[in-house]
């Protein structure tokens, strides 16, 4: 057993885990953060995607101990002060989710996409960047639309701030 300590959604936490415990298991079972989902075992589906030190990682594909000392953000930490993130709002407004299982990973992936590439995203880029997230319900049509809408809104917010 090993003690792991990290910041999760702004809170300093620590827990005792078996060395082989995956970050996804640690978040779900030790921390009760069940918004991070596990949809495959091969790092393909992206339902487990979280941000670690500002980068998108698949939490089913790394050990909890590897996250020691880092700052992790999960879907539960995306809303601020009860306000939905622009990306969360865009998924709702564009019907970008159905069963909701892939949704946390999709939203985390989409936020990361804009962090990396900026808000000037075309459909082709969005579709290409979603390669690591699988959805079986929506056919991606409205997910792509939601991400585009969020990117446009974030661009407006940035412009207004300048």
């Amino acid at each position: 057993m090993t003690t792991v300590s990290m910041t999760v959604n702004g809170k300093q936490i620590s827990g005792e885990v078996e060395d082989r415990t995956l970050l996804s298991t640690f978040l779900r079972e030790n921390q009760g953060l069940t918004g991070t989902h596990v949809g495959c075992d091969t790092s393909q589906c992206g339902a487990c995607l979280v941000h670690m030190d500002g980068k998108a990682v698949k939490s089913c594909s790394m050990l909890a101990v590897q996250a020691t000392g880092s700052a992790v953000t999960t879907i539960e930490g995306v809303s601020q002060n009860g306000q939905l993130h622009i990306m969360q709002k865009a998924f709702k407004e564009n019907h970008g989710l159905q069963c909701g299982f892939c949704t946390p990973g999709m939203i985390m992936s989409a936020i990361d996409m804009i962090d990396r590439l900026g808000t000037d995203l075309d459909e082709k880029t969005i579709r290409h960047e979603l390669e690591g997230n699988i959805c079986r319900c929506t056919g991606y049509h409205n997910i792509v639309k939601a991400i585009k809408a969020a990117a446009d809104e974030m661009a407006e917010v940035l412009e207004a701030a300048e």
Partner: protein
Amino acid sequence: MTAEGIGARVLRKEDKRFITGNGRYTDDMTMQRMGHAAFVRSTHAHARIKSINTDDAMKMPGVDAVLNGHQLVADGIGNIICGWMIHSKDGSPMNMGAYRALESETVRYVGQAIAVVVADTQQQARDAAEAVVVEYEDLPAVVDSLDALKDGAPQLHPEAAGNLIYDWEIGEEAPTDEAFANAAHVTRMDIDNNRLVPNPMEPRSALAHFDPSEEHYTLYTTSQNPHVARLVLSAFYNVAPENKLRVIAPDVGGGFGSKIFIYPEEIACLWATKRVGRPVKWTSDRTEAFLTDAHGRDHHSTAELALDANNKITGFRVKTVANLGAYMSLFSSSVPTYLYATLLSGQYNIPNIYANVKAVYTNTTPVDAYRGAGRPEATYVVERMMETAAKEVGMAPAEFRRINFVREFPHQTPVIMAYDAGDYEASLDAAMKAIDYDGFAQRRTQSEAAGKLRGIGMSCYIEACGIAPSQAVGSLGAGVGLWESAEVRVNAVGTIEVLTGSHSHGQGHETTFAQLVSDRLGLPTESISIVHGDTDKVQMGMGTYGSRSGAVGMSAIAKALDKVEAKAKKIAAHLMEASEGDIEIENGELKVTGTDKKLTFTEVSLAAYTAHNLPEGMEPGLKEGAFYDPTNFTFPAGCYICEVEVDPDTGVVSIENFVAADDFGTIINPMIVEGQVHGGLVQGIGQAMLEHTQYDEDGQLLTASYMDYTMPRADDVPSFTLETTVTECPGNPLGMKGCGEAGAIGSPPAVINAVTDALGIRDMNMPASPNRVWQLIQDNGMKEAAE
């Protein structure tokens, strides 16, 4: 009608919990002292089990128990059933082999459950399952259904000689043969429908708890129909009587059919929780899902279409061999029979149809309903034949369809179905206009100039939904009635809970069902809550599959609303000293027609519960239930057109444009309906272009992870153009037909018709993967032609 009523694009009420990570799926549940289950699974496709040694496993840390099939049978747990009896054409009942939740004698597919380990953690349980030593005596295996029917093929079940489950027929053979004898042209094709794995993103999961003081079980499970699960677990598997078993299907992450069935793992968890004296949870990993979730499709067909000299269809003859895998899953028998061959008339006036279906056992995962269930297979056969026949007789595919469309309703087909309404030409016209069909020739020329091959293909589908009239399906062999139930509970302050037997696992019922109530009573949807998925809350229901929740589930709600409205009107009339017939409900108020007298809905519901001043003899309260049993199937139909470009150097097919024109009858929420179509289209396109389930000859599943089975990704598919035409369903109280499966039903033949058009060939199998397309290009010398 309100701003949130029928036809409004209301944003989903359920979304907030999903976008914030607060959804509650089965694997999110935890209980005090909960143990974790892992299954010991067969590594052989066909073998006798010589011994199961659990000594090492039992000594491993955290292990509570290793339980096997001998103990399961000794405890009286019943065999897994198939709920739809099919009789062969000679009148004999289907030949069903015994199917146990844990097998201890002969395993018949890779992944079959043999034993279950319960341990403190999931990792410990999985480690111990690895340590169970099963000694096998290998038997020869067969994976293809045509091979399974051959003389000398390995035999799976003593009950099914020659691996034949049934040899079934529909339609009239002699007059159909006669039509072929007199035909001016006959089109004949061999058509395969490839095996698929449903792959809802949430893997199956079960959490079972036994309370010994009450002798009561609770099961949280990933189910599309928790009430049917309870019924079957009680009545056939003898887990517990219904009043001692509560089944809860909380948030469920997609189903697509695969979560209809009651699987060995749920039975084993319920059985194990009592034996080990602690709650037991099992969650499938993805490879387990590939190995054990019921697969879909897997047909080999030969089809023949007879035309007269005017190119009118005079006869259709289909022979199909359906692979049902190693065991018969819950509704497996109905899929390649009544859900398939009854749709072989398509949208066309075909006077003579005869179909013969042989269902066979093979050493593969059981096959059952997957989005569309039989109807995609029928549509694929019909629409591949229509496209090919049109080309053979030199007609434009659209014109050939037009001259054969059913145009008068009701229309009785030779294969049971009586189409009640439709306008097939309207959806064909809408789709052709939206895709600019006339401009295709020019686009093809442009593609050719760029060294690409361009093709266009269409598919005019019809399906049968709203399943189904109980008496009708009962006469065809169904073991259940297919009505739906609803209860509308008006609270004293006028807010409402609607209890429904339908189950939402992505379909948005919490929104659309509330829209119906809002429409009727003029109340905001936020004051209306939908309750589903819990056998302790909702008395009985048949669940969600076959695009039935709108047409059947909402019709039950509409019936209950009729009763609520009738009672509310009586109370209002009494309070306002008016005649009951003069009360109308509008915008949340009960008004006396032609006067300014009115009461709010809240005032009337409060009066119902205070009961201080009710009409003579009226019971207090405002709560009504109803069961709705449909009078006919509903018949959604439409036209899909796909335009592709093929790169002859790589064999990569890209969908340049895809138009779907659908007639779903009345639409409650266009936003949600469009979402259903998008998702269905991508599942159908996935089948046609990417997905394929591959076994090796020994019965090992080669495509058992997302590394090997190509799930459609965002960059594999385009955005879609959707068109809507409407003919209301005359037999449905709301005029609804259903929309959940259409996309997956109509799209595969449109894609393959487009790809074969681009390649200038007649025959090809799905999926149109780059490998296969490239090979076809080489074989047909098209590479040179394109250059």
